[in-house]
């Protein structure tokens, strides 16, 4: 059994890190299914910046014979198309045109966090995933996009389905892609209805902006708006939740760390960066394809081959960081792969960072004597977007906001 299979096995979910040392011994390793798995920091960074690597699955040698009905979102496209759509989306989210979007959401994030933690009072036990880590990012992404929060039950299951059918690996890929396609289609139909409504009566939200903006580069078609919205809704849903849950898990396992963070709230800034390195919510980037033969790390990846970047292994590469398997708050110049790199660098990174910093600090500050009810906690099935399904903690009380 090759290492990739072992990592994908649900039994490995609580600690995939023990496999990464063996993985890094061959920085670029051909797996049984034809995938090239890249696991060392420098090689991953090199490929993230390599124009011979495509994010468009239609470039696979073994591309599925059917044409997807959905317009791919920019995460699955290459420049120049990717750049155009990302620029159009960024116009309503960040610099250069809307640099203050995330900062302006800060009070709302804090208010939401406060009410979620208030609700933990009067008992001694809570599931931090269900009650804090999940609801906050969902509320924020809904507010940002302009999706009614009361529709959450409708798209939650669909978003989960899309995520659970992500790779890596080529086995039963066609089947997984069909399942993903179906869930994505349904999400698309839902968001298309919303987009149309926002196009007719724009509000102050991203969907309205995407539907109505027309500039020198034109604007987005409705299909483009919908695929962008599907992407942002899912990504805003399924990643930050893991960053928050992995964070609390990491802190609760290290009482001395919890003490330091409680004493110095500024330390949450390096702590979240170290979390992104040490327990990254996105463990693999599994959607890349070689457009040409690429010789790297002593191996030649042939044109048309699928490439998987083992980000979590790269961020713990001893060739890149000292004592990589330790959580160290005082790392100088912490460069990690938590949000990827190159032109596909995580679109929502500032949102995730800000949410995680606020929520984790409030939980640390307000929970009295918190401890894990189960270690390891149960994990969600996906090896790619990895995080606890539940994080049950016991505590002695909740301090006032």
């Amino acid at each position, binding site marked *: 059994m090759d290492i990739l299979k072992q990592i994908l096995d649900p039994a490995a979910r609580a600690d995939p890190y023990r496999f990464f040392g063996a993985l890094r011994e061959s920085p670029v390793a051909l797996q049984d299914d034809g995938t090239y798995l890249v696991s060392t920091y*420098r090689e991953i*960074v*090199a490929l993230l*910046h*390599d*124009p*011979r*690597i*495509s*994010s468009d699955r239609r470039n696979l040698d073994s591309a599925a014979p059917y044409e997807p009905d959905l317009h791919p979102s920019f995460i699955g496209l*290459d*420049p*120049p198309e990717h*750049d155009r759509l990302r620029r159009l989306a960024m116009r309503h989210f*960040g*610099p*250069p045109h809307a*640099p*203050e*979007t*995330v*900062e302006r959401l800060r009070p709302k994030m804090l208010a939401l966090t406060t009410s979620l933690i208030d609700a933990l009072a009067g008992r001694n036990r809570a599931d931090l995933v269900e009650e804090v880590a999940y609801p906050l990012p969902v509320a924020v992404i809904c507010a940002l996009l302009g999706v009614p929060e009361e529709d959450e039950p409708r798209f939650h299951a669909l978003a989960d389905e899309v995520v659970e059918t992500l790779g890596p690996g080529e086995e039963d890929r066609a089947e997984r892609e069909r399942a993903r396609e179906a869930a994505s289609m349904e999400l698309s139909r839902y968001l298309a209805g919303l987009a149309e409504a926002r196009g007719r009566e724009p509000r102050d939200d991203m969907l309205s902006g995407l539907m109505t903006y027309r500039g020198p580069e034109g604007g987005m078609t409705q299909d483009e708006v919908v695929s962008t919205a599907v992407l942002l809704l899912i990504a805003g849903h399924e990643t930050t939740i893991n960053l928050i849950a992995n964070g609390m898990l990491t802190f609760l396992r290290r009482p001395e760390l919890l003490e*330091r963070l409680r004493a*110095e709230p*500024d*330390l949450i*800034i*390096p702590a*979240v*960066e170290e979390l992104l390195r040490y327990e990254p919510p996105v463990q693999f980037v599994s959607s890349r394809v070689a*457009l*040409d*033969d690429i010789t790297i790390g002593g191996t030649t990846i042939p*044109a048309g081959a699928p490439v998987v970047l083992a980000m979590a292994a790269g961020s713990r590469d001893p060739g890149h960081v*000292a004592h990589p398997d330790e959580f160290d708050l*005082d790392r*100088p*110049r*912490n*460069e990690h792969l938590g*949000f990827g*790199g*190159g*032109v596909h*660098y995580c679109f929502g*990174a*500032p949102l995730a*960072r*800000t949410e995680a*910093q606020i929520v984790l600090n409030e939980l640390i500050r307000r929970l009295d004597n918190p401890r894990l009810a189960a270690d390891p906690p149960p994990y969600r099935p996906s090896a790619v977007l990895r995080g606890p399904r539940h994080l049950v903690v016991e505590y002695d009380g909740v301090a006032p906001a």
Partner: protein
Amino acid sequence: MRVVVDLTRCQGYGQCVFLAPDVFTMRDEALLYDLQPAAEHREHVLRAAAACPVQAIHLDRTALPMPPPGAQEPRSAASGGDGRIVIVGASLAGARAAEVLRREGFTGSLTMIGDERREPYDRPPLSKQVLTGQVPPEHTLLPRLREVDAELLFGTPATGLDVAGKRVLLADGREIGFDRVLLATGTRARPWPDAAEGALHGVYTLRDARDAAELRQALAAGPRRVLILGAGFTGSEIASVCRELDLPVTVVERGPAPLFNAMGGVIGDVAARLQRDHGVDLRCGTTVTALESDGNGRLRGARLSDGSTVEADVAVVALGSVRNVEWLRDSGLAAGVWGVTCDAGCRAVDLNGLVTDDVFVAGDIARFPHPLYEYQFMSLEHWGNAVAQAEIAAHNMVSDQAHRWPHLSVPVFWSSQFGVNIKSVGVPTFADQVVFTQGSPEQGRFVAVYGYQGRITAAVTFDQAMWLEFYQRQIERAAPFPPDFRHVGGGVDGEPVPARVPERLVAAAGATVVVTGHDPAERRASLVHPH
């Protein structure tokens, strides 16, 4: 609190702008920022610095959370040593070298000598944020990355170097003894050759903070027209600021295009279009023959080589720089208008071509042989080179022969003008052909790859900085030119066109040098012979 961004490393991810929008601003990929943000922004700046994907934001060490007692910072294998080290020149290279010496464990006495009275400051903002008024000129001090515990002799220029007697002579008559010395006195603006015309009220040069303050004042007063002599990087950046301030501006350039000396005619033409699209009156292939007075000691305008005249009440002489090496005239070192010659380990060479043991050079005045470019001696007036060379020089000053590092970094240069982030890697003038691989000049975003005799020697990007790192590796490996691989971003490349670079000595082709290794300690050049 002080901030400096290493724009050599910056790739335009913009995370800092999201997290500290009052301190960092961006236009496409061109980043401008406040180097000394107010205390109320401290937390925002901390978040921005932590979030930078390439860790390009440097802050005062004192601004960062303190590690707990007992936490050891990593030390290099350098012996450190003691004794007396003197650094002559207190700008970027000198300041960085002092910090590296302490990082490498040097415990002896350290003296820094500078001709300006100010602490070391950052110069690139002077032609950008400072001229627009976004940042006051006194707000450009470089952050202190660590305590250097040095004797600071600022405002006291050095006037001589006695290599045999191991002394630096100062203008005030003092003599400072040393065991090892670092020469990092940098450059000054090349003055207008006619001293009387150059002294007219309204004629400026731009090199130091005081120049920037004066020029900022002149621009803020709303001149009728600004005349810029020279369309190199400094002249082009000042022209960009003038247009941003909505001031009429005429740029006179001797060469066929702006940036021609740095990047050749192909990109020069793109830069010319950029200037004209932004309303610059650009005149190439032309020189100023005289600056004219109004009779009261004020500038009235200029006469040009084509017989025309320009009326302007402000003129900026941006005709390159002069190296500050006069003080080395009697030192016996190979120092002249070309700079101070040194080996790849930054050790100065004497007039006979012999390498000295305890005199080191870094920054704009250093002229060193580069293996990737046929061991041609080059001096690079780039921010990134000052930092990289200061690191190498400082490390070698406190290391024995077996542990010295070569300065092998591929040159990287950047500029912000007319809202565009221009970056280059390699030596673009070392080329015979250019090809556009991603984007196009028409889109205003592109990668241009330069080749010389069938190998890649440089790349230039306009708002496409994320791809530069790939081409840097291609340069280090002497990869074939034109690139013949399938890639994202446009599919088929155009045909390579003649690079139209300034003439230089063309050496015969032979063995190729490649550079391998990542950290300074492991970087090496090796020869690859053709089969």
